[in-house]
């Protein structure tokens, strides 16, 4: 499983960093974000890339768990 931390990054870097991680075709990926826009953009990208995902809000962060 690959873990990616995109907290503090501005658009479109969170989704770009996710894209780079997805390029290695991992079965599972966990992304930590702290911004709702980033979560929406990453979620749309994961869907386009064929991943199923769920988003959990923990304190001020969002954890996105995605599986192929």
């Amino acid at each position, binding site marked *: 499983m690959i873990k990616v931390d995109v907290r*503090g*990054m501005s*658009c479109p*870097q969170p989704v770009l960093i996710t894209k780079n991680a997805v390029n290695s075709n991992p079965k599972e990926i966990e992304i930590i974000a702290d*911004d709702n826009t980033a979560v*929406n*953009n990453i979620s*749309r990208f994961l869907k*386009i890339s064929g991943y199923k995902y769920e988003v959990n809000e923990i304190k*001020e962060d969002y954890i996105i768990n995605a599986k192929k």
Partner: protein
Amino acid sequence: MDSKKGIIFTGALVGIIAVLLVKLGNPKNMGFCIACFIRDISGGLGFHRAAVVQYLRPEVMGLVLGSFAVASLKKEFNVKGGSSPFIRFTLGVTVMIGALMFLGCPLRMVLRLAGGDLNAIVGIAGFTFGIILGIASLNKGFSLKRNYKLPKSEGYIFPVMNIFLVVLLILAPSFIFFSEKGPGSMHAPALIALACGLIVGILSQRTRLCMVGGIRDLILFKDTYLISGFIAILVFTLIGNLSLGYFNMGFEAQPVAHSDGLWNFLGMVLCGWSSVLLGGCPMRQLILSGEGNTDSVITVIGMFVGAAICHNFALAASPKGPSPNGKIAVIACLLVVGLISYLNSDMANLKSKGKGVA
């Protein structure tokens, strides 16, 4: 509202509101133009003295306050900043210099096309080329580094400043400049314009509508979400213009525009490239400012100062065409943006790391 229906609805409403604002007094094809309106505010406060473009445009205040209100309500008012603020300020200036060469921000570019102004096609070509340059920079690892959480009070200042601007507009004290002729003198009734700004601000905050993001995401991720809003604005403004008889197709004699293709193209290259590096178009920067993003506030202040620079140093184009100073400024800014792209990418970082090892 993170659905395609939501962003298409928002785009449609922006288009309808843009035509409505023209009907109520705004200049033609300028129902909503962030660059023009920030320039007018800059002039209204006396930061430049171009007598024809001075007015405190309440649409801008509405955008910020609408975004602030809905972000607070939805617990999305997150105060953050510290991501290369001076570079962002500089890019705000270059966005404005590019936009005022073309005579409009990316939003007005779409409104101009929907009004039949074919110069906008040249603008869109330049804008797309600028976005491609920006994407190339991103693919080379361009980053303005991370932001950090800041005290809430930091995020309240900009919305409060916008409330203060509304008060100044209503009280109209003698130290505020209001154009008596030209584009600055043409405006919809203030409270209606403010309400329109509030509506667009609320919807844009919810949907993340962004003119640069539409083309960028389509190229980068084959994501059609944001471009749907872009297209909806175009379609609904076109319908509105055709219904009210505002549609006039051609290159020449278009409202508040010039037909110099090369400089329309290069102006929007600069605007598009700078906007990709900033992470969003001028309207998106205003929306983010309302959400507590002080990096975007700094960018907006850069645009405000950029507008003053444009008119104090004769850089802005006019319906007669671009000025010699403006041409020099656009070329110089393209070089500056190229340098910013390089110095903040992996190319420069790897080189400096290599030197460190040696």
